[in-house]
């Protein structure tokens, strides 16, 4: 076990100028064979590995990463954490994830700064208001701590919101989840990596998967830029690049990869102490601990692997937020970037076995995967370890697209951010 992080360990190390800190994780070379291999060292992949080791005793496993761990969407999203979805299946997995986040810093001994500062979804049309009321009833009966709030409460919680009744989309109220919030995205990846590494999991970075080896309908291993690796279980957790990997195994996916952009403002003193989502106008905003306003919106309409999105999408998001938060007009955009998100036919994720024995897939989180990382990792690890869907994962199987059992959140006028 690694030496624990604490205020005391910092003080101790300060005495000799921090020369004795250990590596947070090793950088091992791949072994010839593993009991299981996860492809993709993003949050979902690392969490899967962590829970495989912790809950299922599978420590002879590896996580293979083409680039550097946490370098994909985990390190590019707007870090929103919430569980106030409409459909039972969604509520189950996102609330599992949210509740795991509550104690994650302590469990991983790595501060990922989960900040349940509250999250509100604005209602800006009668229709959206009705849809959110419906969601609030569903969430309350599912046991979630959520409620509708009035325009005046909205103003109280986020004074910089434009509540002018004459504006284009007047705020008729909001749907509020007090325990929703944000987390430090990099720290989630790093914390899981450090935790998995401590239990013996090999995290192999700068290693590209070039082929998946099969014997008939069975997985037997994979080819990588660092050589061949034998294994009977492969979990594909590569988000935007899932189709490319699954093609190697001859499995076609209901996925399209698009670019989702995010941006931050220059840092300013605190003005917004909760996460605000304005779904009618497609913009959402929170303020980071550094003081940057963290802003996201909708995806580009077309397939895009370039991690550079269209300025039009960004412009619409910013325009919507200038209207929602007039004071940001004179603030400045500091940095914009894009991530490749994997969109499914019903915009809900896939946690599933496949027709190839030993091949499992965890993808389709689209624009909202960060909030699900702990839950996704936990149920996917269980699914892989026991070769049967974890009850919470079951509704998210690939078969749903054949049966018409879609999990459509858009019906609640909600979005997956």
């Amino acid at each position, binding site marked *: 076990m690694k030496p624990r992080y604490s205020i005391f360990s910092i003080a101790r190390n300060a005495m000799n100028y921090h020369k004795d800190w250990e590596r947070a994780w090793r950088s091992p070379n791949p072994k010839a064979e593993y009991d299981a291999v996860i492809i993709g060292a993003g949050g979902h992949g690392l969490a899967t590995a962590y829970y495989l080791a912790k809950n299922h005793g599978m420590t002879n496993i590896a996580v293979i990463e083409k680039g550097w761990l946490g370098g994909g969407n985990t390190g590019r999203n707007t870090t929103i954490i919430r569980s106030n979805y409409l459909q039972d299946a969604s509520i189950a997995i996102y609330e599992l994830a949210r509740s795991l986040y509550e104690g994650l810093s302590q469990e991983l001994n790595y501060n990922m700064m989960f900040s349940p500062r509250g999250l509100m979804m604005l209602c800006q049309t009668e229709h959206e208001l009705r849809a959110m009321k419906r969601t609030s009833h569903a969430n309350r009966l599912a046991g979630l701590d959520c409620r509708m709030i009035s325009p005046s409460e909205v103003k109280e919680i986020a004074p910089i919101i434009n509540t002018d009744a004459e504006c284009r989309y007047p705020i008729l109220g909001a749907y509020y989840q007090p325990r929703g919030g944000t987390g430090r995205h990099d720290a989630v990846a790093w914390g899981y990596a450090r935790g998995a590494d401590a239990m013996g999991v090999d995290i192999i970075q700068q290693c590209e998967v070039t082929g998946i080896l099969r014997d008939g309908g069975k997985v037997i291993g994979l080819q990588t830029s660092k050589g061949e690796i034998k294994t009977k279980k492969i979990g594909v957790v590569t988000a935007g*690049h899932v*189709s*490319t990997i699954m*093609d190697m195994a001859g499995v*076609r*996916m*209901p*996925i*399209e*990869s698009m670019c989702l952009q995010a941006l931050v403002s220059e840092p300013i003193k605190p003005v917004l102490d909760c996460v605000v989502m304005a779904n009618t106008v497609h913009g959402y905003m929170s303020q980071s601990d550094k003081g940057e306003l963290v802003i996201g919106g909708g995806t580009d*309409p*077309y*397939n*895009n*692997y*370039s991690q550079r999105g*269209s*300025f*039009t999408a960004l412009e619409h998001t910013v325009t919507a937020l200038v209207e929602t938060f007039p004071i940001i007009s004179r603030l400045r955009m500091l940095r914009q970037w894009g991530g490749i998100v994997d969109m*499914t*036919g019903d915009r809900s994720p896939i946690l599933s076995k496949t027709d190839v024995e030993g091949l499992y897939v965890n993808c389709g989180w689209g624009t909202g995967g960060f909030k699900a990382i702990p839950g996704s990792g936990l149920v996917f690890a269980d699914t892989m370890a026991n070769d049967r869907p974890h009850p919470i994962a079951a509704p998210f199987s690939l078969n749903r*697209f*054949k*049966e018409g059992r879609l999990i459509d959140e858009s019906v609640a006028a909600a979005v997956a951010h």
Partner: protein
Amino acid sequence: MITVNCPVCGAEGDETDFHYGGQAHVRRPATTDAANVTDEEQRDYLFIRHNPKGLHFERWRCDRGCGKWFHAARDTVSLDFKAYYGITELPPDEIIAQAKGPWADYFKERMKAKK
């Protein structure tokens, strides 16, 4: 923001003047034989998509121009268009030759079917 050229009316414009219509050459099984469509065929038609990193084949509409649909071959990394062709047509042979993976397989099948 990418620029698109409409092969029907020749209008050139920014992507905002056009409408993206998703993957090209998706077959609607019910049109030809409504009585015998399997669940798998229906799933493939509704949900399964080619999603290549690289050359892709798509449907676009000249939204702010002539309003016509057309086909395009586009690289999903550089975002550059490689060819435009009619909504009822197959890509030019030299473009088909560049198709990889599932797309290559698809066009092989189509060519067989043609003969």
